[in-house]
């Protein structure tokens, strides 16, 4: 998962945007070399986020905004298959330096079968 400070992309000039693209390409090539890419997406700014949580009575409440108001927001994710955490860390280091990257294993939930 990639976190970044909102507005960075909008304010970036062409050269900076090209650097973002180059870094993502380097990341993707590294992943292809050491494992495989499963999925990825870039997310819109958190100002377009809508949050649904339950109130005390268990009723869904829809509000404007993300889970939590933080300086950094989740900006996108890559689902990749890599051999170990060290390889994942090496891959994450290739992403644009503006990002904070959180690595988490995906898990298979016992007993759950998708329909």
């Amino acid at each position, binding site marked *: 998962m990639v976190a970044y400070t909102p507005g960075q992309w909008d304010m970036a000039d062409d050269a900076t945007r090209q650097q973002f693209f180059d870094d993502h390409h380097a990341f993707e090539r590294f992943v292809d070399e050491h494992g495989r890419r499963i999925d990825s997406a870039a997310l819109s700014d958190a100002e377009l986020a809508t949050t649904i949580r339950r109130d005390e009575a268990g009723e869904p409440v829809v509000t404007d905004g993300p889970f939590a108001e933080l300086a950094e927001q989740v900006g996108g994710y890559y689902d990749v298959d890599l*051999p*170990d*955490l*060290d390889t*994942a860390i*090496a891959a994450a280091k290739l992403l644009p330096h503006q990002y904070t990257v959180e690595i988490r*294993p995906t*898990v298979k939930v016992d007993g759950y079968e998708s329909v």
Partner: protein
Amino acid sequence: MPQGHEEALATVVREEWGRLTSLLLVHFRRLDLVEDALGDAVEAAARRWPTDGVPDNPAGWLHTTARRRILDRLRAEAMAQRKAPLLLVDHEHTQSTATDGIRADPGDLVEDDLLRLVLMCAHPALDLAAASALSLRLVLGVTTPDIARLFLVSEPTMAARITRAKKKIVAAGIPFAVPSADVLPQRLDTVAHTAYLAFTAGYAPGSGPDAVRIALAGEAIRLVRVVLGARPDEPVLVALLALMLLQHSRRDARVDDEGAIVLLPDQDRSRWHHDEVDEAVRLLRSPSLSGPVTIQTAAYAVQARIAAEHATAPTADATDWARVVGHYDDLLALSPTPSARLARAVAVAEAQGPEAGLAALDGLDDELPLSHRLPAVRAELLTRAGDTQGAHAAYDLAIQRCDNDAERALLTQRRDALT
């Protein structure tokens, strides 16, 4: 020979634990089972060796017993159709163990496996204190109750911390591997940091004159020696070992018979371990420290050089304070922490007089608003400068902020001695 079985067992645990752990991990890749199985094997040895005699190959005996224990557990799991997650071991390893089946003799193990174990335990993705505890447990075989005692937490808390770290290693995919050369220096910095954390825990203030905890701090030194065995001349380990040896060499002079803290100038220097000082001084001359090193290595080395100035001065008065100040200047250039500035001010006062020392304290109050050490140092320097009233007020503040009984007693005694 029935006599000596306790020593034989203690020796094999001490010398071979990390290698046995590595060997079993490479073969079975089950971090959860290996530690328990080795613990069980040691218990079995304690029961059987007194009657059966010490086996010719004690390490081999422990390995075989632990291996059987793991196989039993795996069979039970197979029956229950449980599948536990496996540790990630790099390819050449899984392949080599798949082909040789089993490497029966721990003597076959290359030092690299021990390094893999150390790097896995001290991975930066683990909480530092947990990594430190895990290293003592898996590399050195220090028992969980002893580790709990070292870090001043309860045994269940420490057991939970170690279990959580082992779970994260497997679930997050921390590999049993040596990383690529470009990240290895940083990873060895983390290894050094985890070892130093265990070491300083043994000397944590407030814990009193606990000989066992100081002995456990000595285990952190052994951890560094073990890793140095696998990475000879590694700069960060050379510098850290020197620093630890110099601090550890004063262990018998740090507290008096009543358990009160004895400050450096008042310590009985004949009670310092001069063999350890000599070794540290030799380490500091090592060519591995003269090349380009990481900031952490340089910081350990300069702290060791400061400690060495004290350790090699025949008396407190003979300390070369100008050189000590020079070393502190180097340290501040590397890492300008408030505590280093405070220590430098003390050295400046010794080299150039209390007024210069007081001037060197300027600006530190904002950075150390809660520290009792800053007003304690100021009080001492004001005393020497003849400002008794100012010294009294500074001692009051230091005593009010200090939450350590032994240190507070010392401060109160100094304040009450003012005339």
